[in-house]
């Protein structure tokens, strides 16, 4: 049913259930918003109406109405820019600013802050209401996320994301009135909560109330230490997003510029986590085949996503025998770098510093896990910096990113296949595993399938049946922890039978990771990044992990058999149950 309304005296007809904000947008009328967020495709819709910025005047209504959460009704006459609406909007923003630390110049979100942009958009030049600010303690306890709720505007996006989409439930408002803040259960430090550190709260936070833990200074120190060999490894999803902070169109592949920038920053070696992703496939596909052939526990769950791993440890401690025991790719990289590569380079393992450039904040926590300490020295991975942090480092180094010449990764651990690239988006890991499994199981087929498009897409939970050499593999994919919870509950209750399942904590997978450049509340950004990932895959001549020549060499020279003894020692890990609170 269509509903006729007028907005600023312009007549229009919109479907029943449309909000005033959406209707205005369809007419090209802009209404400023702050708390509102609609990422419809991943079901993240924050329509709490708390900030009261988007207020509009509607004929016959006593009060102004929030356009983000008011649906149209027949004959409605809406005015978006009357003096009353505009002045109320300005006062609301002034109120928010009156309770905000005005440290924009030194703030993490300077020039990238929705509140700052809003103040500029409304032309706020003076804050008429002055008064004390609410003081809260900054929480830097976790290795991933810094909570500084003095900068919080109580938009509740983090709460919606964490409670409804991720079903983790870390945040909830506590206290009341002016003292209201987003709090954790029993006011615990972030490190002591059941937070998975997926960082999705950070990616939707409009201000710097939630940010990543900044590890760039430690990396600069390592780079400037002449005794250290500092090796950068880059995750698949970085190369399709790093161009954004430098003004390149969303979805631009910047692999070559990224390598070049890392060299210019001063990394001694620039290598690729994609190499380790191929290695992961070797191990994971072998584990899958091993489990199928030896009657092991099925389904096998991918374990590349550290937020997902922490989620299952907290929420489903009885299912800890189903994830693959494979370490995540960057951890495998670290383990190989500090053994095999150290030998090749002829340096002691403790001279090597491995820096992972990740789209992820959970990887920061993962790198600190005790069980992921190297056999020879310290952690497998020393530091993890996010895509956003790398962009900052590139700026700090004064590098003109856009004009960089493409460069190639360094040898030994720099080669990768198309299969490893698609790790960066939902469905990619399982597709990569299936590519290799298909080739291995269907030995007589000279041309095994490569593109398993039935595994791709943005649907929260996807199921597919893949037939390989007469064997039917039932596969499921979930992205977003709420979707993962649904799937796991069914597995726990024995309602479903799958052979293999891929789970990624972040909606849309690593392209939408908590450490990626801010997506500007635009789902198209995530889609374009995913499309770029598949383009990168197509552009590769080798698209199956086991065909990676450097990987073959690694097994021949060092590891021996996939899923063998040495591989177990270096490339596999274990999980431990954690409390739910």
């Amino acid at each position, binding site marked *: 049913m269509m509903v006729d309304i007028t907005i600023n005296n312009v007549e229009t007809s919109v479907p029943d259930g449309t909000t005033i904000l959406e209707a205005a947008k369809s007419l090209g009328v802009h209404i400023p918003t702050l708390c509102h967020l609609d990422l419809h495709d991943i079901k993240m819709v924050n*329509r*709490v*109406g*708390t*900030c*009261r*910025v988007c*207020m509009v005047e509607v004929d016959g209504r006593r*009060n*102004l109405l*929030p356009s983000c*959460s008011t*649906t149209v009704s027949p004959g409605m006459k809406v005015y978006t820019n009357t003096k*009353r609406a505009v*002045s*109320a909007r300005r*006062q*609301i923003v002034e*109120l*928010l600013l*009156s*309770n905000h630390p005005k440290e924009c110049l030194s703030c993490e979100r300077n020039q990238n802050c929705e509140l700052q942009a809003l103040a500029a958009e409304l032309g706020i030049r003076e804050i*008429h*209401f002055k*008064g004390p600010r609410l003081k809260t303690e900054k929480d830097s306890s976790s290795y991933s996320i810094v909570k500084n709720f003095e900068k919080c*505007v*109580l938009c509740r996006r983090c709460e919606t994301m964490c409670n409804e989409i991720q079903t983790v439930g870390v945040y*909830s*408002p506590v*206290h*009341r*009135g*002016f*003292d*209201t803040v987003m709090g954790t259960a029993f006011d615990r430090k972030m490190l002591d909560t059941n937070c998975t550190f997926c960082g999705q709260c950070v990616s939707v936070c409009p201000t710097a109330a939630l940010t990543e833990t900044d590890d760039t200074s430690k990396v600069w120190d390592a780079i400037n230490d002449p005794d250290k060999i500092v090796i950068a490894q880059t995750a698949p999803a970085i190369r399709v997003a790093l161009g954004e902070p430098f003004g390149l169109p969303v979805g631009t592949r910047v692999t070559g510029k990224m390598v070049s920038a890392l060299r210019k920053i001063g990394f001694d070696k620039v290598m690729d986590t994609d190499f380790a992703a191929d290695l992961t496939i070797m191990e994971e596909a072998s584990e899958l085949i091993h489990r199928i052939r030896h009657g092991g526990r099925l389904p096998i769950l991918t374990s590349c996503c550290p937020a997902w791993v922490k989620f299952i440890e907290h929420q489903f401690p009885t299912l800890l025998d189903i994830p693959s025991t494979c370490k995540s790719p960057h951890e495998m990289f670290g383990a190989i770098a500090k053994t095999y590569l150290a030998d090749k380079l002829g340096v002691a393992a403790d001279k090597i510093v491995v820096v992972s450039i990740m789209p992820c904040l959970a990887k920061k926590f993962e790198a600190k896990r005790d069980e992921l300490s190297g056999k020879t020295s310290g952690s497998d991975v020393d530091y993890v910096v996010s895509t956003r942090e790398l962009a900052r480092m590139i700026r700090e180094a004064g590098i003109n990113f856009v004009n960089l010449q493409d460069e190639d990764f360094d040898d030994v651990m720099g080669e990768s296949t198309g299969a490893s690239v698609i790790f960066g988006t939902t469905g990619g890991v399982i597709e990569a595993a299936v590519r290799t499994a298909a080739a291995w199981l269907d030995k007589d087929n000279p041309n095994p399938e490569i593109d398993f498009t039935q595994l791709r897409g943005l649907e929260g939970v996807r199921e597919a049946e893949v037939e390989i050499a007469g064997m039917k593999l039932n596969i499921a994919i979930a992205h977003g922890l709420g979707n993962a919870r649904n799937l796991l509950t069914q597995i726990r209750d024995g309602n479903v039978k799958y052979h293999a399942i891929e789970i990624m904590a972040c909606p849309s997978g690593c392209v939408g990771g908590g450490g990626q450049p801010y997506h500007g509340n635009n789902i198209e950004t995530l889609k374009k990044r995913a499309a770029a990932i598949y383009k990168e895959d197509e552009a590769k001549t080798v698209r199956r992990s086991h065909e990676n020549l450097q990987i073959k060499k690694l097994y021949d020279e060092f590891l021996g058999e996939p899923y063998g003894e040495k591989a177990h020692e270096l490339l596999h890990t274990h999980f431990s149950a954690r409390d739910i609170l």
Partner: protein
Amino acid sequence: MTRQIRIALRNCGVIDPENINDYIATGGYDALAKAIFSMSQDDVIDTMKKSGLRGRGGAGFPTGIKWETARKAKSDKKYVLCNADEGDPGAFMDRSVLEGDPHCVLEAMAICGYAIGASEGIIYVRAEYPLAVKRLQIAIDQAKELGLFGENILGSGFSFDIRLYFGAGAFVCGEETSLMNSVQGGRGEPRLKPPFPANVGLWDKPTNINNVETYANVTQIVRNGWEWYRQFGTEKSAGTKVFALAGKVNNVGLVEVPMGTTLREIIYDIGGGIQHHKKFKSAQTGGPSGGCIPAEHLDTPIDYESLIALGSMMGSGGMIVMDEDDCMVGIAKFYLTFTAEESCGKCTPCRIGNMRLLEILTRITEGDGTEDDLKKLESLGQTIKDTALCGLGQSSPNPILSTLHYFYDEYMAHVDEKRCPSGTCTKLVGYKILPEKCTGCTVCARNCPVNCISGERKKTHVIDQKRCIKCGVCFSKCPFKAIIRG
């Protein structure tokens, strides 16, 4: 007292509230039986609509229309909620009904359940009302024993059960959607409306929610018919209203009068006028978010519309009378302190706006205010009214806006002359001894709690202004009116 007509309070103090037979003897549960056995669901709703009964909890929404909406909503499950979270300071009409006549609320909820097609009722009652809680539970148990609640009531096929849920004392939980969040175990903060509870309420099911006093009228309307009820009150506001009369009147307490009674009748005829023959200054109605009505409107007939037109509201029926000694700026500050503290913090205007208003008011009462501050109060107050998410925020500036409107001169005295005309803003008050009148009797010095008055017997005394705490004891004790305040 003759002007009172008791409908909601009819049984209070008359029957033993812990004995169901007392209630039945007054015709109790007749209305429920009448509704179930001789009226259709639509008949009940039609009666409620024609009666003109409007919600007694604050906004005055027509009860019959609420019920009708809940009746029309399609769902496998519906709820009847009773809002017994009476939170206005000084208001205790709901408490009196719950403590004095609990069955009339239970019966009305069952009638509502029958009308809208619900089988479960929940009373959200303040845990700070232990006697009300106790008597409600006794009433529920006794009614169940007699088969008046539970499965298949009186063999009619209609089933209805009621349980209690205790509120923890947050004022905002009196707002219906916050109340529902609280019952669901969530944080007491409002939801966006629409959808309204009648369509999407408790556990997202259609829910009818009325307050105690509203329900207390229902049984009488069903029993006696809507025409009977219509004889009381005005065309737009039918029936009676209970007010909690308090403040500087001679007779304080609950009064139940027909809608349309004037303030003057309530304050002077029923309340017995102002204490100590002082001058009436203002009546504050509608609880902490109501407004202050000045003397020139004493003859306004009270109903929902007239109070809103005066910048106040009916609210739940609080009525606090103020005399010439009350400072209107101080009163506004008092109420705002309450609402700012009780704001749930969800929306920006209520969370931050009320705090900023309070800071401005504090400045004014401490002599640091400016004329510009008055403009800010007006404009920010209006914005908060316009933009806040729920009724609490939308009405919290009322005490400021109404006093600004009616008592602007008093505000001006505070900001311009740094003077509090009623002498209650302690920072603006000073006491001085007039040498020509002082006899040196020493009464002031002996009564001063901080010993800051000195002087020899039979000689002029002096107040040490640095140590004076401005309590005003000397002023009131001086037998020769030798001490002036200013």
